[in-house]
């Protein structure tokens, strides 16, 4: 059901990991739906994304879209990163099955959430960037009940 590119990014995810003292970190999705995505950005003084890493809890499409999204923003100015849409992420992966399109939306939101965190820390405004609406607290509460 997945394209070769999705399978490639799932099997060999690019930029998987963490960045210590990242300029911005964004986490979106919720465990209840089975998808959580976290993006770490390292942004220099020129507002260029020097490094990016991700961690994802989710299906094959969620992992692949995270991986592709990091490739698309790496080395870009934050203004360019803002232009990357979920559609672009899905297209770069040669498409996603219709039921998985929400995964690509999550990737776009994760980048925005990390940029928001960066903007907050540096007290700047990024044009077109709104406060991220997704959060993972719902899932965290449920987790406490379990064990």
């Amino acid at each position, binding site marked *: 059901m997945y394209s070769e590119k999705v*399978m490639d990014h799932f099997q060999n995810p690019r930029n998987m990991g*963490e960045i210590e003292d990242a300029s911005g970190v964004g986490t979106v999705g919720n*465990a209840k739906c089975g998808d959580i995505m976290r993006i770490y950005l390292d942004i220099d003084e020129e507002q260029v994304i020097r490094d990016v890493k991700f961690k994802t809890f989710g299906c*094959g499409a*969620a992992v692949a879209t995270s991986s592709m999204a990091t490739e698309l923003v790496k080395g870009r100015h934050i203004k360019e990163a803002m232009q990357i849409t979920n559609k672009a992420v899905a297209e770069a992966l040669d498409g996603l099955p219709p*039921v*998985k399109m929400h995964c690509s939306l999550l990737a776009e939101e994760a980048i925005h959430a990390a940029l928001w965190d960066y903007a907050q820390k540096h007290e700047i405004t990024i044009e077109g960037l709104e406060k991220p609406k997704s959060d993972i607290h719902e899932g965290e509460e449920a987790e406490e009940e*379990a064990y």
Partner: protein
Amino acid sequence: MKPFIYLDHAATTKTAKEVVDAMLPYFTEQFGNPSSIYGIGAAGKEAVQGAREQIAHSLGVQSNEIYFTAGGSEADNWALKATAEAYAAKGKHIITSAIEHHAVLHTCQFLEKHGYEVTYVGVDENGILKLDELKAAIREDTILISVMFANNEIGTVQPIEEIGALAREHDILFHTDAVQAYGQIPIDVERCHIDMLSASGHKLNGPKGIGFLYIRKGLKIRSFIHGGAQERARRAGTENVPGIVGLGAAVARAMEHMEQRAAQETALRDYLIERIEAEVPYCRLNGDRKKRLPNNVNFSFRFVEGESLLIMLDMEGICASSGSACTSGSLDPSHVLLAIGLPHEIAHGSLRLTLGEETTREELDYVIEAVKKIVARLRAMSPLYEDFIKSGKAEKQI
């Protein structure tokens, strides 16, 4: 070379060679319609009757109480819809469990839209039906109790005898979906007061597209498919002769080896459970440890998601299944895992491994190593695991 390890026998099984051999002549030389008067028609009729007797014998019932269907789902639909119709004058209340197969659950939802009331009785944390809840749900107008013999996801075997006794005591019909249990564990229709029972061919090394519904003699039950007089005029349509012959052969075969196969699979099942519990941290066995089908293993692995797990297992040559949302085609994980009280994200990380008669210990050793490696890899990618480790909770729980 990548191996091929099939651990999804609850989904379907390989049709046994002797079953295929038994079926083949009925596609070619013996292609006649059992309703025809001439020789090859009679041969088909005889073969269908022979299979009917094999099946009746396996359950200790009469052959004219067995009705062939196109599979388990049809049998479930028939049992529920036709009972609802035939007994509507008595009442319009049906009781079932929260963990039924969709063939029962969705049929119940259909009946709810047509004026029937359905009570979905809950299960405990191991997936065993709550008998006191069932008892409390019984009403004057209850016409049917339908509870599966064993669950398809977590393998829990239900207290069927107790449920049957309750149904009999209150003069309520009792149907059981035995698709997973039939041929795996002994079923005593009389002792359990079972009035109707659904089963399917392809779960016991028989062909797909064939199953049956046992209907106790004397029950009012309406025709499900209208047309010719086949199946005592209750299920019209020219018989699927090769399928029926295959089902009969598969049943005879399954019954002959049931005890030995169950012992072998139970030993392997417990070996697999024991090693996963010992070697993979933060896992949970879903389903009852003892009241469990011989071939079922179901685990939840915290911080990982089921579909990712399945894809990675597939890359290692292992066929398995999961109750995660991504494999169910919706945003919600399996209703069975939610019914036993698992929070959503733990339910998303479930893995079902169902063994078969050909499963070996060597295969399981390979699977265990693969699961360990893959779970570790997915956890390294998981923000939930990262948070868990950084929170310091991990040390407390080891």
